[in-house]
Protein backbone atom coordinates (compact mmCIF):
# COMPACT_ATOMS: atom_id res chain seq x y z
CA UNK A 1 0.00 0.00 0.00
CA UNK A 2 2.15 2.83 -1.22
CA UNK A 3 -0.74 5.31 -1.49
CA UNK A 4 0.09 8.52 0.30
CA UNK A 5 -2.55 9.11 2.93
CA UNK A 6 -4.21 11.51 5.27
CA UNK A 7 -2.43 9.80 8.14
CA UNK A 8 0.88 8.01 7.90
CA UNK A 9 2.24 6.23 10.93
CA UNK A 10 5.90 5.47 10.46
CA UNK A 11 7.85 2.94 12.53
CA UNK A 12 6.03 3.79 15.78
CA UNK A 13 7.30 2.37 19.08
CA UNK A 14 5.33 2.80 22.32
CA UNK A 15 6.18 1.40 25.75
CA UNK A 16 4.52 1.37 29.13
CA UNK A 17 7.55 1.23 31.39
CA UNK A 18 9.34 -1.92 30.34
CA UNK A 19 6.40 -3.34 28.41
CA UNK A 20 6.80 -2.69 24.69
CA UNK A 21 3.19 -2.41 23.55
CA UNK A 22 3.81 -1.21 19.98
CA UNK A 23 7.02 -2.20 18.23
CA UNK A 24 7.61 -0.52 14.91
CA UNK A 25 4.13 -0.18 13.41
CA UNK A 26 3.71 1.63 10.09
CA UNK A 27 0.33 2.21 8.52
CA UNK A 28 -1.51 4.53 6.18
CA UNK A 29 -5.05 5.88 6.34
CA UNK A 30 -6.13 7.34 2.98
CA UNK A 31 -8.50 10.31 2.90
CA UNK A 32 -12.17 9.41 3.45
CA UNK A 33 -11.47 5.67 3.70
CA UNK A 34 -12.18 3.14 6.42
CA UNK A 35 -9.11 1.31 7.71
CA UNK A 36 -9.62 -1.54 10.15
CA UNK A 37 -7.15 -2.59 12.81
CA UNK A 38 -7.75 -6.11 14.02
CA UNK A 39 -5.96 -8.44 16.36
CA UNK A 40 -6.24 -10.17 19.70
CA UNK A 41 -6.47 -8.48 23.09
CA UNK A 42 -3.15 -6.91 24.01
CA UNK A 43 -1.94 -6.72 20.41
CA UNK A 44 -1.38 -2.98 20.83
CA UNK A 45 -4.40 -1.65 18.91
CA UNK A 46 -5.68 0.74 21.59
CA UNK A 47 -2.14 1.81 22.44
CA UNK A 48 -1.62 2.78 18.81
CA UNK A 49 -4.73 4.98 18.84
CA UNK A 50 -3.68 6.54 22.15
CA UNK A 51 -0.29 7.38 20.66
CA UNK A 52 -1.86 8.95 17.56
CA UNK A 53 -4.19 11.16 19.63
CA UNK A 54 -1.37 12.23 21.94
CA UNK A 55 -2.59 10.62 25.17
CA UNK A 56 0.67 8.69 25.39
CA UNK A 57 3.92 9.71 23.83
CA UNK A 58 5.71 7.23 21.56
CA UNK A 59 9.43 6.95 22.14
CA UNK A 60 10.26 6.50 18.48
CA UNK A 61 8.62 7.00 15.12
CA UNK A 62 6.41 9.57 13.49
CA UNK A 63 2.67 10.20 13.14
CA UNK A 64 2.33 12.33 10.01
CA UNK A 65 -1.05 13.92 9.45
CA UNK A 66 -1.43 16.08 6.35
CA UNK A 67 2.35 16.13 6.23
CA UNK A 68 2.82 17.38 9.81
CA UNK A 69 4.29 15.22 12.59
CA UNK A 70 1.83 15.09 15.50
CA UNK A 71 4.25 13.46 17.96
CA UNK A 72 4.79 15.71 20.98
CA UNK A 73 1.74 17.91 20.42
CA UNK A 74 -0.65 18.14 23.38
CA UNK A 75 -3.94 16.24 22.98
CA UNK A 76 -6.10 19.34 22.56
CA UNK A 77 -3.89 20.62 19.73
CA UNK A 78 -4.31 17.34 17.89
CA UNK A 79 -8.09 17.53 18.39
CA UNK A 80 -8.06 21.03 16.88
CA UNK A 81 -6.60 19.47 13.74
CA UNK A 82 -9.83 17.43 13.65
CA UNK A 83 -8.25 14.13 14.59
CA UNK A 84 -10.93 12.77 16.91
CA UNK A 85 -10.53 9.73 19.14
CA UNK A 86 -13.49 7.88 20.66
CA UNK A 87 -11.70 5.89 23.35
CA UNK A 88 -12.37 2.38 24.52
CA UNK A 89 -15.18 2.43 27.09
CA UNK A 90 -16.81 5.36 25.23
CA UNK A 91 -15.33 8.13 27.39
CA UNK A 92 -18.67 9.36 28.70
CA UNK A 93 -18.79 12.41 30.93
CA UNK A 94 -21.35 10.60 33.02
CA UNK A 95 -22.13 13.45 35.42
CA UNK A 96 -22.94 15.80 32.55
CA UNK A 97 -26.09 15.79 30.43
CA UNK A 98 -26.36 14.40 26.90
CA UNK A 99 -26.61 17.94 25.57
CA UNK A 100 -23.53 19.06 27.52
CA UNK A 101 -21.57 16.08 26.19
CA UNK A 102 -22.56 17.02 22.63
CA UNK A 103 -21.68 20.68 23.17
CA UNK A 104 -18.28 19.70 24.50
CA UNK A 105 -17.81 17.54 21.43
CA UNK A 106 -17.80 20.75 19.41
CA UNK A 107 -15.64 22.59 21.98
CA UNK A 108 -12.60 22.77 19.70
CA UNK A 109 -14.69 24.44 16.99
CA UNK A 110 -16.07 27.14 19.28
CA UNK A 111 -16.32 30.49 17.64
CA UNK A 112 -16.92 28.84 14.29
CA UNK A 113 -20.65 29.31 14.82
CA UNK A 114 -21.62 25.86 13.57
CA UNK A 115 -22.68 24.50 16.95
CA UNK A 116 -26.40 24.76 16.38
CA UNK A 117 -26.55 23.22 12.90
CA UNK A 118 -24.18 20.42 13.95
CA UNK A 119 -26.45 19.70 16.89
CA UNK A 120 -29.53 19.58 14.64
CA UNK A 121 -27.68 17.22 12.32
CA UNK A 122 -26.81 14.67 15.03
CA UNK A 123 -30.30 14.94 16.51
CA UNK A 124 -31.73 14.18 13.07
CA UNK A 125 -29.40 11.19 12.70
CA UNK A 126 -29.97 9.89 16.24
CA UNK A 127 -33.43 10.95 17.44
CA UNK A 128 -32.93 9.07 20.72
CA UNK A 129 -30.36 11.69 21.75
CA UNK A 130 -32.86 14.50 21.25
CA UNK A 131 -35.29 12.69 23.53
CA UNK A 132 -32.65 12.17 26.17
CA UNK A 133 -30.80 15.46 25.85
CA UNK A 134 -31.53 16.64 29.40
CA UNK A 135 -30.60 13.29 30.97
CA UNK A 136 -27.22 12.61 32.57
CA UNK A 137 -25.02 10.64 30.16
CA UNK A 138 -24.33 8.14 32.94
CA UNK A 139 -28.00 7.16 32.99
CA UNK A 140 -28.07 6.02 29.34
CA UNK A 141 -27.90 2.37 28.33
CA UNK A 142 -24.66 1.01 26.89
CA UNK A 143 -25.92 1.27 23.34
CA UNK A 144 -27.18 4.81 23.81
CA UNK A 145 -23.82 5.77 25.31
CA UNK A 146 -22.01 4.40 22.27
CA UNK A 147 -24.31 6.37 19.98
CA UNK A 148 -23.67 9.47 22.09
CA UNK A 149 -19.92 8.86 21.90
CA UNK A 150 -20.03 8.77 18.08
CA UNK A 151 -22.46 11.68 17.84
CA UNK A 152 -20.24 13.71 20.17
CA UNK A 153 -17.24 12.96 17.95
CA UNK A 154 -19.25 14.09 14.90
CA UNK A 155 -19.81 17.45 16.61
CA UNK A 156 -16.08 18.05 16.14
CA UNK A 157 -16.42 17.58 12.35
CA UNK A 158 -13.64 15.00 12.26
CA UNK A 159 -11.32 14.67 9.30
CA UNK A 160 -9.96 11.49 10.88
CA UNK A 161 -12.13 9.58 13.33
CA UNK A 162 -10.61 6.83 15.44
CA UNK A 163 -13.12 4.42 16.96
CA UNK A 164 -11.91 2.01 19.63
CA UNK A 165 -14.15 -1.06 19.94
CA UNK A 166 -17.46 0.64 19.14
CA UNK A 167 -19.33 -2.67 19.24
CA UNK A 168 -17.99 -3.86 22.59
CA UNK A 169 -20.76 -5.10 24.87
CA UNK A 170 -23.60 -4.18 22.51
CA UNK A 171 -26.48 -6.35 21.32
CA UNK A 172 -26.19 -7.48 17.65
CA UNK A 173 -28.95 -5.13 16.51
CA UNK A 174 -27.13 -2.13 17.96
CA UNK A 175 -23.84 -3.29 16.49
CA UNK A 176 -25.42 -3.17 13.04
CA UNK A 177 -26.78 0.28 13.82
CA UNK A 178 -23.30 1.50 14.76
CA UNK A 179 -21.77 0.00 11.62
CA UNK A 180 -24.42 1.65 9.46
CA UNK A 181 -23.13 5.06 10.56
CA UNK A 182 -19.59 4.49 9.30
CA UNK A 183 -20.21 4.63 5.50
CA UNK A 184 -22.22 7.80 6.08
CA UNK A 185 -19.17 9.40 7.68
CA UNK A 186 -16.82 8.49 4.85
CA UNK A 187 -19.35 9.81 2.35
CA UNK A 188 -18.98 13.18 4.09
CA UNK A 189 -15.20 13.04 3.76
CA UNK A 190 -14.22 11.62 7.14
CA UNK A 191 -11.56 8.91 7.26
CA UNK A 192 -12.14 6.23 9.89
CA UNK A 193 -9.52 4.20 11.72
CA UNK A 194 -11.48 1.40 13.30
CA UNK A 195 -10.26 -0.89 16.07
CA UNK A 196 -12.53 -3.90 16.41
CA UNK A 197 -12.73 -7.28 18.09
CA UNK A 198 -15.51 -8.15 15.70
CA UNK A 199 -13.12 -8.78 12.81
CA UNK A 200 -15.73 -9.88 10.30
CA UNK A 201 -17.84 -6.74 10.59
CA UNK A 202 -14.75 -4.56 10.59
CA UNK A 203 -13.33 -6.16 7.45
CA UNK A 204 -16.69 -5.96 5.70
CA UNK A 205 -16.96 -2.23 6.18
CA UNK A 206 -13.27 -1.31 5.69
CA UNK A 207 -11.31 -0.66 2.49
CA UNK A 208 -7.96 -1.61 4.00
CA UNK A 209 -6.94 -3.50 7.09
CA UNK A 210 -3.97 -4.27 9.27
CA UNK A 211 -3.60 -7.28 11.53
CA UNK A 212 -1.65 -6.60 14.71
CA UNK A 213 0.05 -9.26 16.81
CA UNK A 214 2.09 -8.45 19.95
CA UNK A 215 2.75 -4.90 18.81
CA UNK A 216 3.67 -5.62 15.19
CA UNK A 217 1.83 -5.62 11.87
CA UNK A 218 1.75 -9.22 10.69
CA UNK A 219 -0.61 -8.81 7.74
CA UNK A 220 -2.01 -5.90 5.79
CA UNK A 221 -3.82 -5.22 2.57
CA UNK A 222 -7.23 -4.70 1.06
CA UNK A 223 -9.90 -5.67 3.55
CA UNK A 224 -11.64 -7.91 1.02
CA UNK A 225 -8.40 -9.86 0.43
CA UNK A 226 -7.82 -10.27 4.18
CA UNK A 227 -11.39 -11.46 4.61
CA UNK A 228 -10.60 -14.28 2.20
CA UNK A 229 -7.10 -15.05 3.49
CA UNK A 230 -6.91 -18.45 5.20
CA UNK A 231 -4.71 -17.27 8.08
CA UNK A 232 -7.16 -14.48 8.90
CA UNK A 233 -10.16 -16.79 8.61
CA UNK A 234 -8.49 -19.26 10.89
CA UNK A 235 -7.23 -16.90 13.59
CA UNK A 236 -9.81 -14.10 13.64
CA UNK A 237 -12.99 -15.19 11.90
CA UNK A 238 -13.47 -18.49 13.69
CA UNK A 239 -13.34 -20.62 10.54
CA UNK A 240 -11.83 -24.12 10.89
Amino acid at each position, binding site marked *: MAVSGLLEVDDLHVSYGRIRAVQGVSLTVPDAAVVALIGANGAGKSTLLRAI*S*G*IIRPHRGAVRYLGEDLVGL*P*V*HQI*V*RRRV*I*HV*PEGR*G*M*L*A*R*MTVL*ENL*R*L*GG*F*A*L*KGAGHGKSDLERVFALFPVLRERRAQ*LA*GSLSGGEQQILAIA*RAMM*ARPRLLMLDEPSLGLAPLLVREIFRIIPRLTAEGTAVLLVEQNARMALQCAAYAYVLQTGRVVLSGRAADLLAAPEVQHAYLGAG
Partner: protein
Amino acid sequence: MFVQQLVNGLMLGGAYALVAIGYTLIFGVLNLLHLAHGDIFMVGAYVGLALALAGFPPWATLGGAMLAAAALGVVVERVAFRPVRSRGSHVTPLMTTIAVGLVLQHVVVKIFGAEPVAFPAPFAAAALALGPVTLSTLQLLILGTSVALMALLELFLRSTPTGMAIRATAENPTVAGLMGINVSLAIVITFAIASALAGAAGVLLAWNFTGLSPFFGVKVGLKGLAIMLLGGLGNVTGAMVGGLVIGVVEALSVGYLESSYRDAFAFAVMILILLARPTGLLGARLQSG
Protein backbone atom coordinates in the same frame (compact mmCIF):
# COMPACT_ATOMS: atom_id res chain seq x y z
CA MET B 1 -32.61 35.19 69.69
CA PHE B 2 -32.80 32.05 67.57
CA VAL B 3 -33.65 33.90 64.36
CA GLN B 4 -31.01 36.48 65.13
CA GLN B 5 -28.30 33.81 65.50
CA LEU B 6 -29.59 32.07 62.37
CA VAL B 7 -29.03 35.25 60.38
CA ASN B 8 -25.58 35.74 61.93
CA GLY B 9 -24.78 32.12 61.09
CA LEU B 10 -25.84 32.42 57.47
CA MET B 11 -23.60 35.44 57.11
CA LEU B 12 -20.62 33.62 58.59
CA GLY B 13 -21.45 30.45 56.67
CA GLY B 14 -21.60 32.24 53.34
CA ALA B 15 -17.99 33.34 53.75
CA TYR B 16 -16.91 29.87 54.92
CA ALA B 17 -18.64 28.38 51.90
CA LEU B 18 -16.60 30.61 49.59
CA VAL B 19 -13.40 29.15 51.09
CA ALA B 20 -14.71 25.58 50.94
CA ILE B 21 -15.81 25.96 47.31
CA GLY B 22 -12.22 26.82 46.44
CA TYR B 23 -10.93 23.61 48.03
CA THR B 24 -13.59 21.60 46.29
CA LEU B 25 -12.96 23.15 42.85
CA ILE B 26 -9.23 22.44 43.09
CA PHE B 27 -9.75 18.96 44.49
CA GLY B 28 -12.19 18.39 41.64
CA VAL B 29 -9.73 19.06 38.82
CA LEU B 30 -6.57 17.67 40.46
CA ASN B 31 -7.70 15.19 43.11
CA LEU B 32 -5.15 16.92 45.31
CA LEU B 33 -5.44 19.06 48.42
CA HIS B 34 -4.24 22.63 48.38
CA LEU B 35 -3.06 23.30 51.94
CA ALA B 36 -2.02 26.91 51.25
CA HIS B 37 -5.58 27.83 50.29
CA GLY B 38 -6.27 29.25 53.78
CA ASP B 39 -3.18 31.42 53.47
CA ILE B 40 -4.32 32.73 50.10
CA PHE B 41 -7.54 33.70 51.89
CA MET B 42 -5.42 35.49 54.52
CA VAL B 43 -3.27 37.30 51.94
CA GLY B 44 -6.46 38.40 50.18
CA ALA B 45 -7.66 39.93 53.45
CA TYR B 46 -4.35 41.79 53.94
CA VAL B 47 -4.43 43.13 50.39
CA GLY B 48 -7.94 44.34 51.23
CA LEU B 49 -6.57 45.93 54.41
CA ALA B 50 -3.86 47.76 52.47
CA LEU B 51 -6.42 49.03 49.97
CA ALA B 52 -8.86 50.08 52.71
CA LEU B 53 -6.10 51.94 54.57
CA ALA B 54 -5.17 53.67 51.32
CA GLY B 55 -8.71 54.98 51.20
CA PHE B 56 -10.25 52.82 48.47
CA PRO B 57 -14.01 52.28 48.60
CA PRO B 58 -15.39 48.89 49.78
CA TRP B 59 -16.05 47.53 46.26
CA ALA B 60 -12.46 48.28 45.22
CA THR B 61 -11.15 46.72 48.45
CA LEU B 62 -13.07 43.56 47.67
CA GLY B 63 -12.23 43.52 43.96
CA GLY B 64 -8.55 44.21 44.55
CA ALA B 65 -8.32 41.44 47.13
CA MET B 66 -9.96 39.02 44.68
CA LEU B 67 -7.60 39.95 41.84
CA ALA B 68 -4.51 39.70 44.03
CA ALA B 69 -5.62 36.35 45.44
CA ALA B 70 -6.35 35.03 41.94
CA ALA B 71 -2.89 36.00 40.75
CA LEU B 72 -1.33 34.42 43.83
CA GLY B 73 -3.33 31.23 43.26
CA VAL B 74 -2.01 30.96 39.70
CA VAL B 75 1.55 31.38 41.00
CA VAL B 76 0.99 28.69 43.64
CA GLU B 77 -0.28 26.29 40.96
CA ARG B 78 2.83 26.96 38.89
CA VAL B 79 5.26 26.66 41.82
CA ALA B 80 3.76 24.07 44.15
CA PHE B 81 1.57 21.84 41.94
CA ARG B 82 2.66 21.68 38.33
CA PRO B 83 6.25 20.54 38.96
CA VAL B 84 5.11 17.66 41.20
CA ARG B 85 1.72 16.86 39.67
CA SER B 86 2.65 14.02 37.36
CA ARG B 87 5.63 12.75 39.33
CA GLY B 88 5.73 11.72 42.96
CA SER B 89 2.91 10.75 45.26
CA HIS B 90 -0.22 12.51 46.47
CA VAL B 91 1.76 13.52 49.56
CA THR B 92 4.25 15.69 47.67
CA PRO B 93 1.82 18.55 46.91
CA LEU B 94 0.67 18.48 50.55
CA MET B 95 4.25 19.27 51.55
CA THR B 96 4.86 21.86 48.83
CA THR B 97 1.62 23.70 49.62
CA ILE B 98 2.28 23.67 53.39
CA ALA B 99 5.65 25.22 52.58
CA VAL B 100 4.05 27.88 50.38
CA GLY B 101 1.54 28.62 53.15
CA LEU B 102 4.33 29.15 55.70
CA VAL B 103 6.17 31.43 53.32
CA LEU B 104 3.03 33.52 52.79
CA GLN B 105 2.46 33.82 56.55
CA HIS B 106 6.00 34.98 57.12
CA VAL B 107 5.95 37.47 54.27
CA VAL B 108 2.80 38.99 55.77
CA VAL B 109 4.43 39.04 59.26
CA LYS B 110 7.39 40.89 57.77
CA ILE B 111 5.18 43.51 56.16
CA PHE B 112 2.31 43.91 58.64
CA GLY B 113 3.73 42.43 61.87
CA ALA B 114 2.67 39.27 63.71
CA GLU B 115 0.09 40.97 65.94
CA PRO B 116 -3.59 41.05 65.05
CA VAL B 117 -4.57 44.31 63.40
CA ALA B 118 -7.88 46.13 63.18
CA PHE B 119 -9.69 46.17 59.85
CA PRO B 120 -11.47 49.47 59.19
CA ALA B 121 -15.23 49.21 58.75
CA PRO B 122 -16.17 49.81 55.10
CA PHE B 123 -18.82 52.34 56.11
CA ALA B 124 -20.75 53.50 59.16
CA ALA B 125 -23.19 50.62 59.37
CA ALA B 126 -26.81 51.36 60.09
CA ALA B 127 -28.94 48.93 62.04
CA LEU B 128 -32.19 47.71 60.52
CA ALA B 129 -34.73 46.28 62.93
CA LEU B 130 -37.00 43.64 61.43
CA GLY B 131 -39.22 42.67 64.32
CA PRO B 132 -37.02 40.85 66.83
CA VAL B 133 -34.08 40.59 64.40
CA THR B 134 -31.52 43.32 64.04
CA LEU B 135 -29.54 43.40 60.83
CA SER B 136 -26.74 45.79 60.13
CA THR B 137 -26.19 47.06 56.63
CA LEU B 138 -22.68 45.58 56.87
CA GLN B 139 -24.13 42.12 57.57
CA LEU B 140 -26.41 42.54 54.58
CA LEU B 141 -23.43 43.44 52.42
CA ILE B 142 -21.44 40.42 53.62
CA LEU B 143 -24.32 37.98 53.10
CA GLY B 144 -25.36 39.53 49.80
CA THR B 145 -21.83 39.41 48.43
CA SER B 146 -21.24 35.76 49.25
CA VAL B 147 -24.63 34.72 47.88
CA ALA B 148 -24.05 36.72 44.70
CA LEU B 149 -20.57 35.21 44.20
CA MET B 150 -21.93 31.69 44.66
CA ALA B 151 -24.77 32.34 42.21
CA LEU B 152 -22.32 33.73 39.65
CA LEU B 153 -20.05 30.71 40.07
CA GLU B 154 -22.94 28.30 39.59
CA LEU B 155 -24.04 30.17 36.46
CA PHE B 156 -20.47 30.17 35.14
CA LEU B 157 -19.98 26.43 35.70
CA ARG B 158 -23.39 25.52 34.22
CA SER B 159 -23.64 27.68 31.17
CA THR B 160 -20.33 28.96 29.84
CA PRO B 161 -17.97 26.91 27.65
CA THR B 162 -15.10 27.54 30.09
CA GLY B 163 -17.26 26.44 33.01
CA MET B 164 -18.22 23.25 31.19
CA ALA B 165 -14.56 22.66 30.35
CA ILE B 166 -13.70 22.89 34.06
CA ARG B 167 -16.46 20.41 34.96
CA ALA B 168 -15.33 18.03 32.22
CA THR B 169 -11.73 18.27 33.46
CA ALA B 170 -12.92 17.53 36.99
CA GLU B 171 -14.80 14.46 35.84
CA ASN B 172 -12.16 12.98 33.52
CA PRO B 173 -9.07 14.91 32.36
CA THR B 174 -8.25 12.40 29.61
CA VAL B 175 -11.70 12.64 28.06
CA ALA B 176 -11.65 16.43 28.51
CA GLY B 177 -8.44 16.54 26.48
CA LEU B 178 -10.07 14.45 23.75
CA MET B 179 -12.83 17.09 23.56
CA GLY B 180 -10.17 19.63 22.61
CA ILE B 181 -10.03 21.17 26.08
CA ASN B 182 -6.63 22.51 27.14
CA VAL B 183 -6.58 20.73 30.49
CA SER B 184 -3.58 22.63 31.88
CA LEU B 185 -5.32 25.92 31.13
CA ALA B 186 -8.56 24.68 32.71
CA ILE B 187 -6.57 23.89 35.87
CA VAL B 188 -5.00 27.36 35.93
CA ILE B 189 -8.43 29.01 35.51
CA THR B 190 -9.77 26.82 38.32
CA PHE B 191 -6.99 28.01 40.64
CA ALA B 192 -7.65 31.64 39.72
CA ILE B 193 -11.38 31.33 40.45
CA ALA B 194 -10.93 29.34 43.67
CA SER B 195 -8.35 31.82 44.94
CA ALA B 196 -10.44 34.87 43.99
CA LEU B 197 -13.32 33.45 46.04
CA ALA B 198 -10.94 32.89 48.97
CA GLY B 199 -9.72 36.50 48.66
CA ALA B 200 -13.31 37.72 48.75
CA ALA B 201 -14.02 35.59 51.81
CA GLY B 202 -10.92 37.07 53.46
CA VAL B 203 -12.24 40.61 53.17
CA LEU B 204 -15.80 39.60 54.13
CA LEU B 205 -14.65 37.83 57.30
CA ALA B 206 -12.24 40.64 58.17
CA TRP B 207 -15.21 43.04 57.94
CA ASN B 208 -17.21 40.69 60.11
CA PHE B 209 -14.55 40.15 62.80
CA THR B 210 -13.25 43.75 62.37
CA GLY B 211 -9.67 42.50 62.45
CA LEU B 212 -7.19 39.92 61.19
CA SER B 213 -3.81 38.32 61.84
CA PRO B 214 -1.26 36.53 59.64
CA PHE B 215 -2.42 33.22 61.15
CA PHE B 216 -6.09 33.94 60.47
CA GLY B 217 -5.93 31.66 57.41
CA VAL B 218 -4.88 28.53 59.28
CA LYS B 219 -8.09 28.14 61.28
CA VAL B 220 -10.43 29.24 58.51
CA GLY B 221 -8.53 27.08 56.02
CA LEU B 222 -8.95 24.05 58.24
CA LYS B 223 -12.63 24.83 58.58
CA GLY B 224 -12.99 25.19 54.81
CA LEU B 225 -11.29 21.83 54.32
CA ALA B 226 -13.64 20.19 56.80
CA ILE B 227 -16.64 21.84 55.13
CA MET B 228 -15.55 20.38 51.80
CA LEU B 229 -15.64 16.91 53.37
CA LEU B 230 -18.97 17.70 55.00
CA GLY B 231 -20.47 18.74 51.66
CA GLY B 232 -19.07 15.78 49.74
CA LEU B 233 -15.64 15.73 48.05
CA GLY B 234 -15.52 17.73 44.85
CA ASN B 235 -19.17 18.78 45.12
CA VAL B 236 -19.60 22.55 44.73
CA THR B 237 -23.24 22.63 45.86
CA GLY B 238 -22.24 20.48 48.85
CA ALA B 239 -19.60 23.02 49.85
CA MET B 240 -22.22 25.79 49.73
CA VAL B 241 -24.66 23.86 51.89
CA GLY B 242 -21.90 22.65 54.24
CA GLY B 243 -20.59 26.20 54.72
CA LEU B 244 -24.03 27.51 55.66
CA VAL B 245 -24.62 24.59 58.06
CA ILE B 246 -21.33 25.17 59.88
CA GLY B 247 -21.84 28.92 60.01
CA VAL B 248 -25.26 28.48 61.60
CA VAL B 249 -23.99 25.85 64.07
CA GLU B 250 -21.18 28.15 65.08
CA ALA B 251 -23.46 31.15 65.54
CA LEU B 252 -25.94 29.11 67.58
CA SER B 253 -23.16 27.86 69.85
CA VAL B 254 -22.06 31.45 70.38
CA GLY B 255 -25.61 32.42 71.20
CA TYR B 256 -26.58 29.55 73.48
CA LEU B 257 -23.31 28.12 74.82
CA GLU B 258 -20.11 30.03 75.06
CA SER B 259 -18.23 31.93 72.44
CA SER B 260 -14.92 30.16 73.17
CA TYR B 261 -16.45 26.76 72.29
CA ARG B 262 -17.56 27.85 68.83
CA ASP B 263 -14.91 25.95 66.86
CA ALA B 264 -15.09 22.85 69.04
CA PHE B 265 -18.85 22.78 68.64
CA ALA B 266 -18.68 23.33 64.88
CA PHE B 267 -16.16 20.49 64.45
CA ALA B 268 -18.15 18.19 66.76
CA VAL B 269 -21.27 18.63 64.64
CA MET B 270 -19.18 18.00 61.53
CA ILE B 271 -17.86 14.73 62.96
CA LEU B 272 -21.38 13.62 63.90
CA ILE B 273 -22.70 14.34 60.39
CA LEU B 274 -19.77 12.52 58.79
CA LEU B 275 -20.30 9.50 61.05
CA ALA B 276 -23.87 9.29 59.81
CA ARG B 277 -23.01 10.14 56.17
CA PRO B 278 -19.38 9.32 55.45
CA THR B 279 -19.58 10.62 51.87
CA GLY B 280 -20.85 13.99 53.09
CA LEU B 281 -24.20 15.75 52.86
CA LEU B 282 -24.37 15.61 49.05
CA GLY B 283 -21.76 12.90 48.58
CA ALA B 284 -24.17 10.26 47.34
CA ARG B 285 -24.82 12.28 44.21
CA LEU B 286 -21.13 12.33 43.51
CA GLN B 287 -20.89 8.56 43.71
CA SER B 288 -23.89 7.82 41.56
CA GLY B 289 -22.23 9.69 38.69
